[in-house]
């Protein structure tokens, strides 16, 4: 039971991190039609800038400053490079961000080196947010913070006690992502700038005719989207590892999220990122193969089948390909994505 709860929460927090990235990507895509291939690179820059600033001003100011820096860099890139390519069409736009992802990877290695840097969260976040204590006599209960050692061990050998802590960084990640989700939604639907963005999204010419500076709105959206990636980078980088390969590990997954959720649909991106986060987290934790299944059910398999590499694969080994398999299945059975509206 505690395995289920903790895995669920881990999956949710990973999914919410994915959402922080895919929301920016979806925002930029639905706004400008640009698929920002370098989105994960901005995530990585966020982590590295957060690490450097964190060393100077501390973690909390860096949590605010690093996304601002990344957003400014994103807006700068939009201004000097992407805007030039915009008239050529969508494929060159995608190519220019693809080129940027190469340059960013090399620059990061140039500045911060090729090995992982030690980016650790502050002391407050290093412990456990809460601990689940499963007592075989008293049942399960929850304790905020880390559990003292004597509660996790029973004096009586017959009583089994299992303590499962949930890391505070993960909880923090969830809180930030949910806050961001709510504020993004409020910004888009309840404020004037949000209304202008929505107008520029569907009717750019009309919005421009009404006196709004649409290119500047685009720059703002691109900056905001990359800023969100930067925020995710600070949190993700301090929770996981900050290394040059971190962009590649999340990069392709967030593209899967965007396609599965439906291109340009923010709620679809939310659903898909949580779904993929949960599926992947559970799959990694399950050590169960078809062979074990056959044995449990009681089938007699031939020696050849027992040695078959397909049959021997455990669910945890298959975990890395699950998002992509999911993508292919969605494309076959529901080509516009889970909550997508446009076919294209």
């Amino acid at each position, binding site marked *: 039971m505690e395995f289920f709860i903790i895995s669920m929460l881990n999956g949710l927090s990973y999914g919410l991190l994915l959402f922080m990235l895919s929301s920016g990507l979806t925002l930029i895509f639905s706004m400008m039609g640009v698929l920002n291939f370098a989105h994960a690179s901005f995530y990585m820059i966020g982590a590295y800038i957060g690490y450097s600033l964190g060393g100077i001003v501390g973690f909390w100011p860096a949590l605010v400053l690093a996304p601002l820096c990344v957003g400014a860099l994103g807006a700068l890139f939009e201004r000097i490079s992407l805007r030039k390519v915009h008239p050529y069409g969508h494929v060159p736009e995608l190519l220019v961000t693809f080129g940027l992802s190469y340059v960013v990877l090399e620059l990061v290695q140039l500045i911060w080196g090729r090995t992982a840097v030690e980016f650790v969260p502050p002391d407050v976040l290093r412990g456990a947010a809460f601990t689940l204590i499963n007592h075989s006599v008293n049942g399960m209960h929850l304790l905020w913070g880390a559990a003292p050692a004597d509660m996790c061990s029973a004096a009586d050998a017959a009583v089994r006690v299992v303590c499962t802590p949930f890391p505070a960084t993960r909880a923090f990640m969830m809180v930030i992502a949910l806050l961001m989700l709510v504020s993004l939604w409020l910004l888009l639907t309840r404020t004037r700038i949000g209304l202008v963005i929505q107008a520029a999204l569907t009717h750019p010419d009309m919005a421009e005719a009404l006196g709004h500076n649409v290119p500047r709105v685009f720059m703002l959206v691109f900056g905001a989207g990359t800023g969100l990636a930067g925020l995710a980078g600070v949190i993700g980088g301090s929770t996981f590892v900050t290394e040059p390969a971190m962009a590649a590990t999340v990069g392709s997954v967030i593209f899967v999220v965007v396609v599965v959720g439906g291109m340009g649909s923010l709620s679809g991106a939310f659903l898909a990122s949580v779904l993929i986060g949960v599926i992947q987290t559970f799959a990694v934790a399950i050590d169960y193969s078809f062979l074990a299944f056959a044995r449990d059910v009681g089938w007699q398999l031939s020696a050849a089948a027992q040695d078959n590499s*397909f049959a021997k694969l455990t669910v945890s080994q298959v975990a890395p390909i699950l998002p*992509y398999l999911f993508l*292919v299945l969605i494309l076959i059975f529901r080509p516009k994505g889970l909550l997508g509206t446009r076919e294209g």
Partner: protein
Amino acid sequence: MSAVYKFKPYNVGRWIIWGLFALVLLVAPKLFTSNLSVTMLAQMGIAIIACLSYNMLLGQGGMLSFGHAVYTGLGSYMAMHALNAVSGGALPIPVSLLPLVGGLSGMGFAVLLGWVTTRKSGTPFAMITLGVAELVFAMSLMFSEFFGGEAGVSGNRVAGQPFFGITFGPQIQIYYLIAVYTFVCVALMYAFTQTPLGRILNAVRDNPERVEFIGYNTQRVRYLAFIIAGFFAGIAGGLGALNFEIVTAEVVGAGRSGAYLLFTFLGGATFFFGPIIGAVLMVIAFVLLSELTKAWLLYLGLVFLFMVMYAPGGIASLIMMNLRVAKFGKLRQIWTSYLGLGITALAIVAGAGAMIEMVYHLQLNSALGDVVKFMGVPLNAKSVDSWVGAIFVTLTGLGLFELARRQYVLEWGEIQVEIEKEIKRRETAV
């Protein structure tokens, strides 16, 4: 443009160009005889087939694929397994036909995977190819029976009966096998651009809606083109397997796919011969540039960025534009600007390159002392002098480059206007 050189019944210009191409393939290893250059030439032949097959998607079909290495790579694996079967005596086909095995299997995988990928076009297509590429790469680490795990699958190309003394043992024999395949494949791919399918593929790229209105299924057109591109990609993969005699999981990886995309675009996706230039550059960059500097990927990325921003037609389009200028005899007016651009650009490259190399040196080999050799000049990476010097050179170069660029843009515009006038004049004269 094509109307100018048509001499019926024979198209002389075309015969000359294809003859020259065959001649280059034939004599290249006679001119560059060292082991390294023959190996590089063989790799270039393979890269030419791969990049041209990629351009069938990108340039002719407007399909930006991030997963082309899947088809070349799986072609490599199948050809390698076939080679091992030939060595074991289980498969009675000559080694020279093994690339076709790669081609057919590349085609088979394109039939299978392309059905999913080509359901969409544009940006979604690009993302799906990326997903499929990740899927195949992740699988390559899971099924070690087929993919050979970390070590890969290796084989020996000297298998079966020798044919007129050709065993494919020496590198030069495998080079000529690759050259023959390259020539035939390039010719076939050029022929494809002239077929009705090739033409309608261009139409699908330019305006899919209209193509649907005249009664074609755009999805099927994309699918067919994808299958054909998969076939040629598989041939390139099969040749690669014979050339290296080892296939590792890296051949289906994202890095390889990205390289195909990058260099096809750099060469020029809008012209048929563009990817050939790109493929030659690719081998030079991978073999020579990576030896020269550790920061080569950074330079490559920057060149690519500027190319997309300022010359989206790639090197091929630059050549064609200047050929047009030369044809009208205007190159003389502009060569001084080219000289200015070249010199100032060199200054920027020297200054910025020096700084990049110094930073890399500090990052990676500071244990070897502080002195970096850059373009033959020893620079002390820790002294202020070399930094100030590098910054000075870069800034001066940048300033002068901007001046030269403005002058160049002015002259280029004037020449284009003059050429337009000349064309009009000729038309009225006729």
